[in-house]
């Protein structure tokens, strides 16, 4: 489904080169729910952006759904983002001047769906997140949790193969965070592959699999068991040796 081999990403500014990802290797299978954790600045967002074709990378190979996406044209990446990938952002990123229905329609319009198809999908997606009655509301008229559910509806309306979420609960209180997490779990159970960056160890633990990114590299613990105890330690850790030591214990 998703396969990165030796992907690296260097940000160059006038003064410094930042190696945001270095020799990054990762395989994600169809239907997985992967939680990505790691210290601040370790490269989680960079990884997610590259995975979602929001930005390019410097070296390596990346196959998405069997397609080599290393050198796609801007238009082709836009099409793949539009058709195969759903994005959920920490700040929800709803368009403030558009009501909920219009917000959810945005990617559907770029896809060229006709009005009837758009309306059907908007309705369905809003029902899925439990906000079907709020069609005409503006984003500011909703709570943060509700806004994030709308954003999820927007991501779902395109029926993506893949859902990428960068700290989707980062701006929410724990109750709302749990609701959003439940929603994501339901979506995953329906077959959508999800990669979620989070700082919340409790939420990370609920995913099938946890990935640590530290200093631009993967520490893939591939934990399918629920009894893993060290996630919270890992989140606090910034030192790879300490992590490895924890894992060995």
């Amino acid at each position, binding site marked *: 489904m998703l396969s990165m081999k030796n992907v690296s990403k260097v940000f160059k500014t006038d003064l410094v080169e930042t190696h945001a990802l270095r020799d990054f290797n990762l395989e994600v299978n169809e239907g997985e729910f992967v939680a990505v954790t790691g210290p601040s600045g370790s490269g989680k967002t960079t990884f997610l952006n590259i995975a979602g074709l*929001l930005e390019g990378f410097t070296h390596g190979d990346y196959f998405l759904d069997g397609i080599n996406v290393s050198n796609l044209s801007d238009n082709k990446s*836009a099409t793949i983002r539009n058709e195969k990938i759903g994005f959920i952002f920490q700040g929800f990123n709803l368009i403030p001047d558009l009501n909920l229905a219009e917000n959810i329609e945005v990617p559907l319009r770029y896809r060229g769906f006709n009005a009837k198809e758009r309306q059907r999908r908007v309705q369905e997606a809003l029902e899925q997140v439990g906000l079907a009655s709020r069609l005409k509301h503006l984003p500011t008229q909703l709570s943060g949790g509700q806004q994030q559910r709308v954003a999820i509806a927007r991501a779902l309306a395109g029926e993506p193969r893949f859902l990428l979420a960068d700290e989707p609960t980062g701006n929410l209180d724990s109750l709302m965070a749990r609701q959003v997490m439940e929603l994501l779990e339901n979506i995953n159970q329906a077959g959508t592959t999800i990669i979620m960056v989070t700082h919340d160890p409790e939420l990370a633990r609920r995913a099938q699999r946890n990935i640590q990114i530290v200093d631009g590299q993967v520490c893939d613990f591939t934990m399918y068991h629920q009894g893993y105890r060290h996630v919270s330690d890992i989140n606090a850790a910034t030192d790879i040796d300490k992590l490895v030591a924890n894992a060995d214990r």
Partner: protein
Amino acid sequence: MLHIKPILSSLLRSKSGPILLLIQIILSVAIVANASFIIQERLALMQRDSGIKESEVLTFSLFNFDPLIDKTAQNKIDQQILRGLPNVIDATSTNMLPLSGGGWSSTLKLGPDPDSTKSTPQFAMYLGTDHTIETLGLKLIEGRNFYPHELKDSLDSPSRLAIISSVLAKAIWPDESALGKVLYEGKDAQITVIGVVEKLQGAWIDSSSLENSVIQNVDYGSSSYMVRAKSEFHAELKDAIKKALLAENPNRVLDGFKSIEALKDSSYRDHKLMITVLTMMVVLLLLITSLGLTGMVMFNIQRRTKQIGTRRALGAKKRNIISYFLVENYLICLAGGVLGGLLAIQLGQQLMKIYSLPMLELSYPLFTVAGLFIVTTLAVYLPARKAANISPATATRSV
């Protein structure tokens, strides 16, 4: 796939910014449409054909101070001298100078009874010679020129001849030839039309009867003369005229050497000034409007950086972003254009009433709006292309 509906509803929800621009566009359209109409009107006035070879005709005044001379005889001698000068095509005396802003105007009666018969329209009354047509370069389209022996020395002569402009001929006798027709000056004098020239304008450019002219066969040797020669000879001709006429009689002053082109220029000076001012105003308004558009687009791009990144992340291609901004501003322009067009017509009607301008032609607001769309495209496209280059990663990177 222009997605007008969400752009429109988004516009309607973010009121303040576009409202100001909208007002600016409405006013610009109203003013530009009327200004360009007035410019066009004035240009058309200036481009009217006078029927005269304006640049070739050199005019001057001659004042005799010699109490002993016979003015009538001297006038004839002077004209002979003028016609004999090198490069001179022809020369004549005249009572007035075309397009100069000063001259004689009159009306005549169509019958002998001054109380009961109709008058002609107002016309410019030229007194001239058998050389007037050739000197002014007029085109005789009917009838004939005066013969030398037909020239009178003064207006006292009770039976005179006239060559009239075709516009005047049509105005008096719409369905018949003017040739042989007689016009009456009170009970005493009769003026017979013997020729029609295609065009001859009078002296007053703003007069509605500018095209109505009559030349009578009166060699009116008062002070004005017209000499025709190619314009490149005018400078030396001026010297030659002075030299020759002063040699003939030194007790005289020669003055005011000007071509009819120069006379016309100064008559149209106010029109030219008006055209310049209005053109500057139009250019300035278009410039301000396009700056306003560019400014608003740049402001909106700044304000919507994250939104644009999000749209790109959700699958917008670069061209979708560009067309978003174009459509958004076309909508503002369309609203501004329609309202501005209506205001333009309203303004035109006020101007028509107050300054007795002709009615605003509808094509002017239409062309102005069309021009506005071109300006919009230019003003919006460049910043919009910059917006399209906002990275999709902005969606996750910015707060």
